[in-house]
């Protein structure tokens, strides 16, 4: 995008968001916001979706939503938190819609695969399937917590929950994974 303003001289995110809300189209303030949050949104989308194509689609959709809803940011929270929340919601809705489709595809493909996975697949390959057993929001929380190092305070702001509720859900998610897969990483 053509950057008309020097991003380094622009004010903080919240002031920039206010400026972007005044713009009629994707002007310099919104362009600067895209530049600032591009990497973080991309990381969230890739972590939650696991595939580059899906992540790219979701990350672009996040910025479209940010643009269309730019006037609704009231400054109750940090703009960064708001962006992260939009990114997470977008990824979750994309996963839900694509999950239904893939469920049918994988069910059809399962008939062609051997009945048992080799034991050598191990923990690393199983990790994704372990997380698939979790509720969508719990899975997202666990990924953001452990893969991206978000604090419980940040998770609480993103998911609109209390800090203790976030701790509880992550803890329960961990317990669920442990119960299901035990020490070996294989489903019991």
């Amino acid at each position, binding site marked *: *995008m053509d950057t008309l303003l020097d991003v380094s001289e622009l004010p903080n995110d919240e002031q920039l968001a206010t400026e972007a809300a005044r713009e009629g189209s994707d002007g310099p303030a919104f362009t600067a916001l895209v530049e600032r949050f591009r990497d973080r949104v*991309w990381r969230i989308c890739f*972590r939650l979706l696991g595939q580059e194509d899906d992540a790219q689609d979701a990350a672009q959709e996040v910025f*479209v939503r940010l643009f269309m809803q730019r006037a609704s940011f009231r400054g109750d929270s940090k703009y960064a938190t708001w962006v992260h929340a939009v990114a997470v919601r977008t990824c979750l809705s994309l996963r839900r819609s694509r999950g239904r489709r893939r469920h049918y595809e994988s069910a059809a493909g399962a008939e062609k695969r051997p009945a048992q996975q080799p034991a050598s697949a191990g923990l690393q390959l199983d990790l994704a399937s372990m997380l698939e057993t979790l509720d969508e929001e719990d899975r997202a929380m666990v990924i953001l917590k452990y893969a991206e190092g978000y604090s419980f305070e940040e998770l609480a702001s993103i998911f609109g929950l209390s800090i203790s509720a976030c701790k509880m859900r992550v803890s329960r998610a961990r317990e669920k994974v442990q119960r299901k897969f035990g020490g070996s990483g294989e489903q019991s």
Partner: protein
Amino acid sequence: MNTEHDMDPDWFQQLAEVDVPPVPAHFDHEVRRRVNNALLAVQLIELATKGFLYACGEFSRALVDLLTFSVSGKFSSDRRKRH
């Protein structure tokens, strides 16, 4: 229980070990294209709905005038001039 908790960090630390690829090359261009498409769609919808309402208003006024003329034989503009 302890064994389970000892296993836990190993499992979840693997999440952080998964590399995130760099942002695709034409990402900004695609964002801009999608934003502009969305903006265009919104403006077209707004134009269509507002234009439709305006047209309905205009035509209904003409229809009312026609009915008024049919009944009274006078244009509403004629009545206004007399007053």
